[in-house]
């Protein structure tokens, strides 16, 4: 399959590169994944389309360093996370990545603001960056304000919020402390049409503001047009499922 280069404009200055990845869940697993090359430049937005079972969750887990490939390299900001120890990968993820899930993004026992501040507990770098203009708490409030979460909701438990509001709080959590790459796994699938558009607008604004890259996975093609690149996951990764029964 042809090598796909995303960052034609700033070659050699990639935020993320994946090369010659081979991955298998376990020795006798029925599912494995291989990928020749995937590159993402600084601040670029990628739309990744793929139906379920196409390996997108596996791909995102690989990028986040939650799972490790059997072969190949995954570089984030020039650092090959495959070569790092587990603790270093966790620290790198805390420092440089922000993740938004499909739904249930927030810890149910924390307040809205505690959820936004959560990543700072695991990253000194982001703690520092969030303190550039005051306390992290002030920064979180500013973020929430921009994301349209009114002040009276900041100290509320997350269960008080609508799904749309929760997803926007998740953006705040992903973006606080200026990470370099935002990974969003079908973040709009639980939202209605209006909140979906509002969510995307805010997500783009925020990633642009901190110049973070964005990988958004969805099977909703109608979102694709606003991104720098549109990819079909089936074109970049090969997966094979063999039924062992």
């Amino acid at each position, binding site marked *: 399959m042809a090598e796909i280069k995303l960052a034609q404009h700033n070659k050699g200055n990639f935020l993320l590169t994946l090369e010659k990845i081979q991955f298998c869940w376990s020795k006798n697993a029925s599912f494995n994944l291989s990928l020749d090359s995937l590159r993402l430049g600084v601040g670029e937005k990628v739309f990744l389309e793929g139906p379920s079972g196409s390996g997108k*969750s*596996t791909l*995102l*887990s690989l990028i*986040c360093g*939650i*799972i490790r490939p059997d072969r190949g390299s995954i570089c984030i900001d020039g650092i090959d996370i495959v070569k790092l120890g*587990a*603790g270093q990968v*966790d*620290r790198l*993820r*805390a*420092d440089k*990545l922000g*993740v938004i*899930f*499909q739904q*249930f*993004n*927030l*810890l*149910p*026992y*924390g307040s809205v603001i505690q959820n936004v501040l*959560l*990543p700072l*507990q*695991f*990253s000194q770098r982001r703690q520092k960056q969030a303190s550039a203009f005051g306390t992290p708490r002030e920064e979180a409030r500013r973020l929430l304000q921009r994301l349209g979460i009114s002040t009276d909701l900041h100290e509320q438990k997350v269960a008080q919020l609508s799904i749309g509001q929760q997803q926007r709080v998740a953006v705040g*959590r992903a973006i606080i402390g200026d990470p370099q790459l935002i*990974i969003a*796994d079908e973040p709009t699938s639980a939202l209605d049409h209006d909140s979906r558009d509002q969510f995307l607008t805010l997500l783009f604004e925020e990633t642009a503001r901190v110049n973070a890259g964005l990988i958004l996975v969805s099977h909703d093609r109608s979102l694709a047009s606003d991104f720098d690149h549109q990819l079909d996951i089936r074109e970049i990764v090969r997966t094979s499922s063999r039924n062992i029964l």
Partner: protein
Amino acid sequence: MTTLILAWRSLASRRTTALLSIIAIAVSISLFVGVERIRIGAKSSFTSTISGTDLIVGARAGNVQLLLYSVFRIGNATSNISMNSLEAVKAQSDVAWVVPISLGDSHRGYRVMGTTREYFKYYRYRNKQPLKFTEGQDFYDLFDVVVGAEIAEKLGYEMGTEIIVSHGIGAIDGAAHDNMPFKVSGILQRTGTPVDRTVHISLEALEAIHIGWDSNNPIPITEVSADLARTLDLKPDSVTAALVGTKSRFGIFKTQRFINQFKQEPLTAVLPGVALQELWTIIGVVETALSAVSAMVVLTALLGMVTMTLSTLNERRQELAILRSVGAHKTTIFLLLISEAALLSASGILLGVGLLYALLFFIHPWIEQSYGLYLMISRPSLYELKSLSAIFLTACAVGIIPAFRAYRHSLADGMSVQR
């Protein structure tokens, strides 16, 4: 620290189940420490039944048997000892005092003990406390009687109440010494010892009521009036046993040897402390069983906690995935679950100990009154602190089960939780 705060918040969000786990642990801890306190209380009440007496002398018998009938009023002596022998013991230079006691009769289920006035002077219990009278005094008249606290309370006896002593253990109708009624002259304060359940009369009175009785017959051959009895020589020839006090600690063993090797009559002298210990080792099996049961209850509560944590783990996969996504290490997930077990068990232990102290505070006067069991409200003993620490560590250890499960989930789930 962060982990502990997260664990705390997570538990707080599931406070109903968490609270139930804590209560289960707390109740088991209360039981565990309570049993321990009762065990210690029972042992100390038991071993402090008699103190200040250096030797107990009786007819040749086993240590425990002698202790049982002379102190606990359980069972009977195989035979009596003669007053002559006691005089010989008293004549020893190391002996300070000898208090004879005679058992055999009863009053409404309580044992009657004949003794001398010295008994009230020399008998000591728990840390050498002397017997004290709530009302009245020891025997003045021949037919005066001193009753223990429990008897006075249960039978409603007051000063001057007339009582009749039954012959033997009172199983046979008509075998009563009703020709010579006694009058209550003193009521003793509660001691928590068999003294509370004893009717004390003088040796002379015991002799008087048995005039005309043949030891082989359950009923008297002739009956004598109280007034006639007063005119007779009532010095007994023999008694059941005697309590002996020595002048110095060194005298104890010398006197014991003298008594055990006494030629004229086969006698046994035992050290009460040694005999009590010996008896306790027999009863002690029960205490071990109690401790084992309460330890099992604690273990059950801990397993309940693990079950609770395991059952909620599936719903919490997303929570754990979120933590992983923001950079939490795998071991953080592991520690988070261990911290939960630690927090639950620590809260349970503290609450349990608190509950027990509150309970002890309110019921200990009642327990002491009704059972003569002296329960200490003291700081936790070293043994208790060690046990509680061991329970805490066990809780953390069993917390590894859900922790490991969560750890595995967090690896298998990757970035997405299959719901």
